[in-house]
């Protein structure tokens, strides 16, 4: 734990960092709303995964399987 003057300096630094991060977040939100859905979709990847019968397994394993597959490709 830190106490006294050092703690005050740290708290000021923390609040400055928090403000900075909040500012970046605010700009990101505006950017996100300016370009909605600005990303590409790999439909073949999704078609392969849809063949899985168990939806829970699909949800849990899907992202990791997909990334491994993409990395392999």
């Amino acid at each position: 734990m830190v106490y006294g003057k050092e703690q005050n300096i740290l708290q000021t630094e923390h609040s400055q960092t928090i403000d900075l991060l909040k500012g970046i977040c605010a700009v990101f939100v505006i950017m996100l709303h300016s370009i909605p859905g600005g990303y590409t979709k790999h439909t073949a990847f999704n078609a392969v995964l849809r063949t899985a019968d168990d939806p829970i397994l699909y949800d849990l394993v899907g992202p990791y399987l997909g990334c491994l597959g993409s990395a392999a490709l």
Partner: protein
Amino acid sequence: MILSGLTWDASAARHSKWYTKKNLLHKFKRMALPYLPALLLKVLVLGLPDDPLIWLASGGYQMPGSYYVILMFQLILLFPFIRRFYNWNKSKGRSWLVGLAMIFLFHCVYELLTYVFRMPLPVYRLLVLRYIVFIYSGICLHRMILGGKLDWKDMRWMLPIGAAFILAIGYLGWQPKVLFRYSTWYRSSAPTVFWTLPILALVFRHKGKILAKAKRWKAGQWMYKTLQLCGKASYHVYIVQMLWFGMVISRFNTASYRQVIILVISVPVCCFLGIGYYLLTHIKITAKDKETRDSHRLGEMK
């Protein structure tokens, strides 16, 4: 939401009791007062809805990010429970990671319930429970900072999990069917906390270096000051961007070739209007506070 958890935990540490009329009213006012003029503007421009009560409960007209205010109102009531869970976990000698895993599991159960009961998207959108992992991780982060035990290296293992989820959801077109199945909220659903939390921890770990580097150049200083002011006014900027995209930009044809123009215009307009709105309300509040303080002093002198 992680930052909300962090700042609210710091705020809760300053108040011995959360559920006091004064504290609840103060928090409610801070959220509601900047939002009311926006709500009024929406009514003036778009007219009154058929069912005003439901309309009001859902935060008014559905605009980009209009759910946030409603979530914050819920968080005012729910936050002490999340915080108490953290304290209870700590008192049992468990690490923050065990608590995070438990909350994540709880979140998964909640997601499963939304699937079983076929919760409609507009309801899901307005419930703060979908962000509980983020709020909890904000509390964890704050306690680590307070205790001087922030080591982002302990969190590095989370990065590949979060990255894999985001990559699959956002770029490869993977669509979940049971958990985190609401397509509108893929990119802010619970597993993305594994990506965001270590990055935030890294920023806080090296905050001194980042701040010093930002202040070294004139352009950096300007950027730093503007972003910091934007951060102080983030709630107001958020309200302004909601109105900007919901009432102004939505009237135009946003074909892809125009999106860059929209981006270039929207960022400065929303930031500066939001900062202006914040300063306007802030000056009013500061003046009111001064007035109250002066009247107290006069009362004491009498």
